[in-house]
C-alpha cells in the first residue's frame, strides 16, 4: 500500500482522503514530506541527535489535526507550520535563554518585493552559503533562509508558517542574507565559491 505513489493526486486531495478516513493515504503524504522535513529540521535545529523523533512528532501532530486543514488552501504551508511549532519546542528544550527576542520588524508594514528573477539568480549562491555558514546565525534568520531558499516557500506561505506579516518576511530575509554574508566573510570564504 505504501509503495503506491499516486502522482496524479495533489497533497490537498490526499489530505481530503485522509480526512475522510483513508488512513493509508497518510503514508503517501509522509513519503512526500519526510525528506523535506528532515532537511528543514536538520538545518534549523543544527543537526540534533533526535531529529527522527522530532519529525515523527510532526507527522503525529499532522494526523491528529488534519481535520482542521482547509483543503481550499495549500497543504505545504500548513504542515510546515506544524513543523515550525514542533521544531521551536525542540529548540526551546535544548536552549537556556529566550529563543526569540521581540522583532521590531513586525511592528510596522514594510514594502514587499518578491522578485522571481532575483530568487533564481541568488538561490544557487545562497544554498552554498547555507551549507557552511548557517549555524552561526540566529534561529529566526536560519529558519527564514531555509524556508525561502531550500524549501522554496513564497513570502505569503512563509508569513503563514511563521505567523508574521508578509512585509516582515521580506525585511527579515534581507537581514538574514546580510548576516549570512557577514558570517561568510568572517570565515574567510568567498561568496562565489
Amino acid at each position: 500500500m505504501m509503495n503506491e505513489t499516486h502522482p496524479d493526486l495533489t497533497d490537498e486531495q490526499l489530505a481530503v482522503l485522509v480526512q475522510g478516513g483513508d488512513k493509508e493515504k497518510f503514508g503517501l503524504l509522509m513519503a512526500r514530506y519526510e525528506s523535506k522535513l528532515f532537511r528543514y529540521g536538520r538545518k534549523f535545529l543544527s543537526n540534533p541527535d533526535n531529529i527522527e523523533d522530532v519529525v515523527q512528532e510532526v507527522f503525529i501532530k499532522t494526523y491528529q489535526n488534519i481535520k482542521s486543514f482547509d483543503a481550499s488552501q495549500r497543504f505545504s504551508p500548513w504542515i510546515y507550520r506544524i513543523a515550525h511549532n514542533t521544531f521551536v519546542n525542540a529548540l526551546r528544550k535544548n536552549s537556556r535563554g529566550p529563543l526569540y527576542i521581540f522583532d521590531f520588524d513586525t511592528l510596522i508594514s514594510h514594502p514587499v518585493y518578491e522578485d522571481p528573477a532575483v530568487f533564481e539568480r541568488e538561490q544557487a549562491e545562497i544554498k552554498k552559503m547555507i551549507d557552511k555558514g548557517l549555524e552561526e546565525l540566529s534561529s529566526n534568520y536560519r529558519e527564514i533562509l531555509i524556508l525561502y531558499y531550500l524549501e522554496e516557500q513564497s513570502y505569503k506561505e512563509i508569513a503563514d508558517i511563521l505567523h508574521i506579516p508578509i512585509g516582515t518576511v521580506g525585511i527579515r530575509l534581507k537581514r538574514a542574507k546580510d548576516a549570512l554574508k557577514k558570517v561568510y566573510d568572517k570565515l574567510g570564504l568567498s561568496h562565489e565559491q
Partner: protein
Amino acid sequence: METQNDKIQEHVLEKIRSSEVRMRPKFYFSFKIVLLCIVLLGILVISSFLFSFIIFTIRISGHLFLLGFGEKGFQAFFLLFPWKFLFLDLILILVLEWIVKQFRLGYRSPLAYLLCGIFFLTVIFGTLIDLAHVHEALLHKADQRGLPVMGDYYEHLRRPPPDQGVVSGFVEEASGTSFSIESAGMYGTSTMIWKVILPPGVTILGLTKGDEVLVAGDLDGNMIRAYGIKKIEKIPSEATSSMK
C-alpha cells in the same frame, strides 16, 4: 533495504492503524474557534468597560481640573490617576492582540496597526458604554450599597481618601477668606467638616451652600490650605434614575 525514513512512516502508520494516534474531530476545531471568539469578545467588553471607567473616573471626580492648578495640581492628578485600571486595561489589550494573532488577519497585520485597531475598538465600545450612562447607574447603586464587587471603587470616585490633599464635598458656609465643606465618608456612614483656607488674594465668588466643590491643598488637621478650588458639575439625575 528499509531506510530510516521508511521506518518512521511505518511506525507512525502503525500507531494510526492501532488507533494509538487518532484524528481530532472537526467539531473540536470549530469549538476552539468559537471559544476563542467568545473569549475575544468577552475581553473586548471588559477592556472597553475599564476604559470607560477610567474616563468616567476622571470626569466625575473632577480630577481633570487638577491639571489647571499648577505644578502641585499636576502632581496630585498624577498620584490620583487610576493607574491600576489603566495597567489592567493595557494587559487586556495585549491579551486581545495575542488572541487576534491566532487568526490570519491578525498575524498578517503589523503589530502597531493591530494594537491601534484594538485600542480604537476599545475606545469606540468604551464611548458607547459611557454614552449609555452605565457607570452613572452603577455609581447610584454603589451609593445605595447595592454594588457588591465594584462598590468601593465607585464610592472612591466621589469620596477619595484625602491623603493626597484633594477633597471633594458640599459647601456648608462661606466667609471672606475661607469656607467649610462637608465631605461624606464611604456610603455616607460618616461625614467630615473641612475648613478651606483660600489662597492669598482669592475671594469666594459664586459658591453657595450645597455646591459640590473639589479642593486641592495642603492638609493641616481638618484644615486645607487650598491652592485650587473647582465647583463640580452634578450628575444628571435623569441619567441615574433612567438606569435604575
